[in-house]
């Protein structure tokens, strides 16, 4: 059967042009890969691969510049929104985005994130919320759920001493500089499609000069969570979505009026 079907005429999907040939270092099933694939697909569809500049974080996505085939810089831990600000102000015709985990964005980099949104910087942030520090061995993040076990909360996050998870999208949506702030998830085909649409709209927000945009993506870390990749998707749906509801938190009227 294969032989007759495998020809260019019948091609439905292949590895995006915006991806390099390099295999990723992510753990099997890690949805960091899915998120980066969607970014590459959107930049290709918008025909802006050669004018985009990514800012990579410190975290598991530190090597993002090896995978998405565009210009990239690497920021110090948490400073990606500040670096993206500088690049965008010097090169306003480029499409500039940071790609950051929850430790990078909401712990050490919280100030940079909030102020970039408050200033209405015309940049985009792709925010990967996996409720944990993946790279360093699964420690508690600002997004770790109450009661969730991590290597630095081995008995489960105790809100009495360790506080509550931060809902970044809700918080940034209160800022007037924010043009487009939404939360999506990467746990099933339907939600992956919705995530891709949101990434597209975030980049369109920037291309049309409509202010700060961020897509928060609920993502898995099967290694940090101690589950198989398939179990992780179910865990995300069951536990993360109630704590971090999916939705549109800020769509400025100018963004809502965009015809794409």
């Amino acid at each position, binding site marked *: 059967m294969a032989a007759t079907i495998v020809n260019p005429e019948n091609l439905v999907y292949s590895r995006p042009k915006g991806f390099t040939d390099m295999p*990723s270092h992510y753990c099997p099933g890690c949805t960091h890969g899915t998120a980066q694939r969607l970014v590459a697909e959107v930049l290709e569809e918008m025909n802006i691969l050669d004018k985009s500049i990514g800012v990579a974080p410190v975290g598991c996505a530190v090597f993002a510049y090896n995978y998405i085939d565009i210009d990239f810089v690497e920021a110090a831990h948490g400073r990606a929104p500040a670096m993206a600000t500088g690049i965008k102000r010097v090169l306003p015709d480029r499409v500039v985005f940071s790609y950051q985990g929850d430790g990078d964005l909401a712990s050490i980099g919280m100030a940079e994130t909030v102020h970039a949104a408050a200033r209405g910087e015309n940049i985009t942030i792709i925010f990967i919320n996996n409720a944990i520090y993946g790279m360093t061995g699964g420690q508690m993040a600002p997004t770790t759920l109450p009661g969730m076990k991590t290597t630095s909360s081995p008995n489960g996050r105790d809100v009495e001493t360790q506080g509550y998870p931060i809902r970044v999208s809700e918080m940034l949506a209160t800022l007037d500089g924010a043009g487009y702030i939404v939360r999506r998830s990467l746990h099933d085909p339907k939600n992956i499609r919705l995530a891709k649409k949101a990434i597209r709209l975030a980049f369109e927000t920037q291309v049309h000069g409509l202010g700060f945009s961020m897509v928060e993506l609920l993502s898995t870390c099967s290694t940090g969570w101690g589950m198989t990749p398939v179990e992780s998707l179910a865990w995300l749906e069951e536990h993360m979505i109630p704590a971090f509801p999916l939705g549109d938190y800020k769509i400025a009227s100018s963004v809502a009026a965009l015809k794409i």
Partner: protein
Amino acid sequence: MPAKGWIEVNDLYCKGCELCISACPPKVLELDNEKLTSKGYHPSHIFKDGCTGCAICALVCPDAAITVYREVTKAPASAAAGGD
């Protein structure tokens, strides 16, 4: 007649995570236990008929390892016009 599809899994990228296997609507994928990739994973493959070329496996694959083909089968005019 359902569309006929086929996928190819690139062993350079596949890590045997099984996300495509669990997402595949007609359940025609499994890990190929006869094969090891250079990284030491059993890669995913089609093990029986029934692939429709829907590309849902490729949509969920974090490693962009899957290429999807679908044969465009034109229904005969009589069949298209028929039915109730």
